[in-house]
């Protein structure tokens, strides 16, 4: 124990010495594993574009990024991680969109002594018992936005909620997260089949349940289907959900069915800070579309990386980790810092879906939770 402490102190001293001597830290090789083909490719493309935009703006040519497509298959992702570590000899990995892929890749990456910066997925196992000194989540812990939704539903005065999510771990976490902060009672709780596209049966039950609000977590095409069918059903109860189903990318496919829906997010394109304004403008200029939540997360992840590289050499693991922990960068979401388990402590905002000209988008209407941290931090020992 003392031995370890001593080593740490020495390392810190060394990095301080380096900084003092003016030997600025060098570049890094980054491996990005993300989903670029098949269903769900849009999310990966946004993360990649956001990330690369920040790298480009930094003007640093000493950051080399290797990008590979995981096809949303866990085994492919693991294989790519092996390739990047063994062949490409990357220092830092990032990019994974899906929790199940993150669960497959992150533990083995950190076990091999590499850093992993998560731009999207934040499974609870990696925030709690399975946390690692080399794992940083720049987006959120999976429960956060759902907790925000629960808090918002409570503060908005709803008394009976009907909640539904797909029957898989992230879905179960979502409902747990909502219930953790919702103080009313439940009119009904449903698990749907993963990938289900017809929600007539569920909507019929919502209609019969006597609820005064509906909370759902149905990522991707599932959410689009649900919202359209819900709007068509004439049930008309207010809907609350996490930002995933109301993001820039898919909002156009949902259309008017989403108008007026309240959703919770740690970011929105109308967040009033300089970094965000610049980001939204430059993203639009470069890619010709509005940035999404995922693009902002990719952008922030790159900013974090660059900020740490400015302070420490990536080969100096302890120094680099300290630099990451400091999170010394201007995030697109304003105030941002890491908790003890390397997950964000941040505001969760409430947004409403509106129409700006021809485009459906979100505007912020309030804050659901301030400086919110996740509940798993207590279980994390590192």
């Amino acid at each position, binding site marked *: 124990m003392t031995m370890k402490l001593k080593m740490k102190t020495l390392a810190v001293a060394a990095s301080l010495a380096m900084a003092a001597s003016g030997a600025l830290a060098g570049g890094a090789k980054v491996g990005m594993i993300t989903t670029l083909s098949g269903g769900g490719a849009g999310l990966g493309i946004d993360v990649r574009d956001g990330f690369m935009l920040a790298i480009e703006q930094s003007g640093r040519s000493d950051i080399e990024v290797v990008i590979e497509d995981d096809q949303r298959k866990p085994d492919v992702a693991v294989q790519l991680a092996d390739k990047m570590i063994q062949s490409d000899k990357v220092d830092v990995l990032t990019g994974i969109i899906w929790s199940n892929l993150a669960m497959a890749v992150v533990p083995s990456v950190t076990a091999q002594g590499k850093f992993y910066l998560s731009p999207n997925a934040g499974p609870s196992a990696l925030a709690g018992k399975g946390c690692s000194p080399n794992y940083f989540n720049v987006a959120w812990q999976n429960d956060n936005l759902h907790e925000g939704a629960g808090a918002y539903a409570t503060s908005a005065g709803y008394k009976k909620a009907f909640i539904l999510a797909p029957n898989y771990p992230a879905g179960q976490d979502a409902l747990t997260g909502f219930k953790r902060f919702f103080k009313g009672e439940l009119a009904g709780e449903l698990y*749907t089949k993963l990938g289900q596209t017809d929600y007539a*049966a569920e909507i019929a039950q919502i209609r019969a349940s006597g609820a005064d609000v509906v909370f759902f977590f149905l990522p991707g095409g599932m959410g689009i289907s649900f919202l359209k069918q819900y709007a068509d059903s004439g049930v008309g109860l207010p809907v609350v959900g996490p930002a995933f189903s109301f993001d820039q990318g898919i909002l156009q*496919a949902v*259309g008017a069915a989403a108008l007026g829906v309240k959703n919770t997010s740690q970011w929105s394109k109308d967040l009033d800070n300089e970094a965000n304004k610049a980001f939204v403008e430059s993203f639009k200029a470069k890619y010709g579309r509005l940035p999404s939540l995922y693009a902002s997360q990719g952008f922030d992840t790159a900013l974090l990386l660059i900020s740490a590289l400015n302070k420490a050499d990536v080969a100096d693991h302890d120094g680099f980790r300290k630099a990451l922990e400091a999170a010394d960068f201007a995030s697109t979401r304003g105030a941002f810092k890491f908790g003890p388990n390397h997950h964000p402590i941040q505001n969760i905002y409430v947004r409403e879906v509106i129409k700006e000209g021809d485009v459906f988008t979100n505007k912020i209407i309030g804050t659901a939770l301030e400086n919110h941290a996740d509940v798993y931090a207590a279980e994390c020992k590192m």
Partner: protein
Amino acid sequence: MSVILLVEQTLNGLQFGVMLFLMAAGLTLVFGVMGLINLTHGSLYMVGAFAAAAVAARTGSFLLALVASIAGAAAVGTIIEMAVIRRLYSRDHLDQVLATFALILILSEGTRWLFGSYPLFLDTPPWLSGTLMLPFGIEYSIYRLSMIGAGLCAAAGLFWMIARTRIGIQIRAGENDREMIGALGVNISRLNTLVFAIGAGLAGLAGALIGAIQSVQVGMGEPVLILAFVVIVIGGIGSIRGAFVGAILVGLTDTLGRFALPHLFALFMDASSATSIGSSLASMSIYLLMAGVLLLRPRGLFGAT
């Protein structure tokens, strides 16, 4: 669990079943006449939905979009039939499965290349939005009612075509004896293309009708494809009547299973595990139904013995 809810769920099951029939009809026709297992059918469904979304975005007309879905899917169907599929009729099932599996890869990625990675927008038209008050206080979506109606019309049209028209006679002859219709002077190759195109058009129509209330995206076809296979296997491959009965059975089993099983389990366990276990079992229910039917009738309900 009220009676009204049960009726509403039965309507939902019916609507799902009718849509499945539109998918399954093409599959079973193609198998009956040409002896082909066609995994590409799900991609044609997707093509229909994309064609509809593209046309709806340009013209704003839902009816034109439906026409486009049928035409688009039938056109793509005709092209792949003439380019690839017709070489597979004489092959064994293994080659057919593999070749059409390859076509799925090509069509899916090709669509993504053309239309991008994000879902497209396709909505129900205003004149079909909202709900209708049925007798006994049942409130039901007009669009879904229209889907049931449209699906039943398509089914009736198909039955009529097969029973009464010249093409129908040729199709029935083709199912029984391929050499014979050649001897009768029917151009078999043209008949095959026609049957394939009809099946593709129906799948495309289903894609557009469903796409309007779900999401239009790459990969939307495969889950429906597997369901359609379950349907025709239950009904007996090659039998249109079987496809219809199978589709309604699967639609009802799936919808009512999802609704009833969690309630059933809640009778003897706590609510949250009942929800979880009941949902798991519900997602397996149609496969259980299929296994059960095949064990009792190895060639499906209406299959030739």
